[in-house]
């Protein structure tokens, strides 16, 4: 039986990344949200090997801009799309890499992909999801598994 990290595990990992690089305040990231709307930024890393699937980080556009501003130590209104893509990619990479360490190995971790909007993973099903709120904006972390492995 494959161990799949729990939603709590995803939250703990995300909280550690956020505390280390964005806020320095564990209370800055709140549990729960109403979900991310259509105006979203999604970062994703793929795993292939003993576990094949994806880890996605989706947040509202304002949250993505604020995250980039925090990482680059800039004012939010000075952040460019390049910086948003870099920041969300690196955050997805850090969350994904730490989730990977809890999954069966060995697996290879892809470079992050970042899109404005929703990202679909063909043939994969979501196995875990956690909803969070940062600076009053929604953030969702989800773990996906290739259907053939999930069966």
């Amino acid at each position, binding site marked *: 039986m494959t161990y799949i990290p729990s939603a709590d595990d995803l939250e703990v990992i995300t909280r550690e990344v956020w505390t280390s690089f964005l806020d320095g305040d564990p209370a800055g990231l709140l549990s729960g949200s109403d979900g991310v709307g259509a105006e979203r930024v999604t970062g994703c890393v793929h795993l292939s090997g003993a576990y094949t699937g994806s880890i996605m980080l989706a947040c509202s556009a304002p949250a993505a801009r604020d995250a980039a501003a925090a990482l680059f*130590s800039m004012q939010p209104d000075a952040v460019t799309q390049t910086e948003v893509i870099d920041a969300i990619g690196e955050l997805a990479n850090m969350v994904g890499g730490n989730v990977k360490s809890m999954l069966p190995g060995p697996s290879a971790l892809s470079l992050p992909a970042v899109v404005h909007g929703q990202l679909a993973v063909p043939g994969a099903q979501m196995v875990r999801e956690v909803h969070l709120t940062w600076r009053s904006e929604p953030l969702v972390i989800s773990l996906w598994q290739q259907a053939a492995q999930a069966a």
Partner: protein
Amino acid sequence: MVIDDSSAMRLILGRIMRGLGFDVVEAPNGAEAIARLQSGSMPEIALVDWNMPVMDGLAFVNAVRKEEKWRQITLMMVTTESEQSQIVRALAAGAHEYVIKPFTPDAIADKLALLGVLAY
């Protein structure tokens, strides 16, 4: 030398290293880092991400360790790759230390002190 494909991460690590008294050069992947070394840059230490385009961190470590003239460069992986088997691979290839992201500035400083490249 800070080698990471994320410019945000290069900025964060560069700031930490400057704060510890190092001059910092950056590269967005292993190939550009090798090019800098070939052009005469000789860093005391390289902080190396694993997953990068063009040339990843493990390939960079292997390339550096093949060259006698670069033997004195201390190599520290700073990466999200946290599987035990990956850590063993990097250390076996010649990396001296391994830091898993996310990290704190103190964690970087502590590792540098352990490596003897930072005097407390």
